[in-house]
């Protein structure tokens, strides 16, 4: 062992891996890596948002009619559910910082419950779309929308683009939620085992960053898909 080495060679384990100078540097590195990953996620979802903007610009009538066929109440409730889950995550990270094991486990479990509630409500919305034949494919049919909005011209092919984007965007978001629930199940197990201490709670913090990010994606999906075309159609 080099005596003048700035690296704590003897200490191993999650508290401080030997290639970091101190715990703070280790935490900063983890945080930076997580944010770099989230930056790639921004671009991942960004492509879909870009496609949505372009097609909404081209086929405004169809996008407005499709948007109005979504259930705004279920959408609003789901937004509130996700915001509540973000609160339990933030309080969970705080509990980990303070070394409150039981509180941490409870808050992580609550987050998972909110996650399932969101996915359940999303499932109900998707099932409604299935019943209305609004899922792109062979049985796709928008005669109901054509009848409901006689003042605008609705091309079924363009309407199909709206619903394709709706299912792609909410589906990709739901996939992220499912992965998030998996991550939080992992965190809950290790928190229950007492692996996270005020000295080392990086996984809780990084899982939290991921969950908050998925929440932010929904914060933008909600107005774009549900809200901006509610005004009367001319």
């Amino acid at each position, binding site marked *: 062992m080099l005596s003048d080495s700035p690296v704590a060679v003897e200490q191993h384990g999650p508290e401080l891996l030997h290639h970091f100078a101190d715990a703070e540097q280790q935490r900063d590195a983890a945080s930076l890596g997580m944010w770099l990953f989230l930056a790639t996620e921004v671009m991942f979802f960004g492509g879909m948002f870009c496609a949505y903007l372009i097609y909404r610009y081209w086929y405004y009538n169809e996008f407005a009619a499709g948007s109005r066929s979504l259930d705004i109440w279920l959408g609003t409730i789901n937004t509130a559910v996700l915001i*509540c889950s973000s609160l339990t995550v933030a309080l969970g990270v705080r509990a980990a910082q303070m070394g409150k094991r039981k509180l941490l486990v409870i808050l992580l479990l609550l987050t998972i419950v909110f996650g399932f509630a969101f996915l359940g409500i999303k499932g109900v919305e998707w099932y409604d779309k299935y019943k209305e034949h609004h899922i792109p494919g062979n049985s796709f049919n928008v005669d109901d929308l054509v009848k409901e909005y006689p003042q605008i011209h609705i091309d079924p092919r363009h309407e199909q683009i709206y619903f394709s984007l709706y299912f792609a965007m909410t589906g990709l978001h739901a996939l992220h939620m499912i992965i998030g629930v998996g991550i939080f199940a992992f965190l809950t197990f290790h928190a229950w085992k007492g692996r996270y201490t005020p000295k080392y709670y990086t996984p809780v913090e990084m899982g939290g960053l991921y969950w908050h990010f998925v*929440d932010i994606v929904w914060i933008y999906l909600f107005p774009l898909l549900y809200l901006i075309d*509610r*005004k009367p159609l001319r």
Partner: protein
Amino acid sequence: MSEHIMSSKFYYTIWIALLCLTVITAAVSFVDLGPFNTIVALVIATIKALLVVLFFMHVKYTSEKLTKIVIVSAIFWLFLLLALSMADYATRLLS
């Protein structure tokens, strides 16, 4: 990222603010503001996203400069993607 534990009251305040903004944005969507419906909805969404990033994700108080650069560049690349694409599609009818 130094140790900095916020009070739980602080998190509840952010949570209430986020819920209020959600109710406001849903209610405003029923009012006919013309082209401003989109702008209002996206401004409210951005305020909500900022609250989450700055306070729930601890960017305001505890993250270091390098992390902030990564976040700002992520937003900048997204802006490039959206702005340059729309600059193409929005000007096609002009010719």
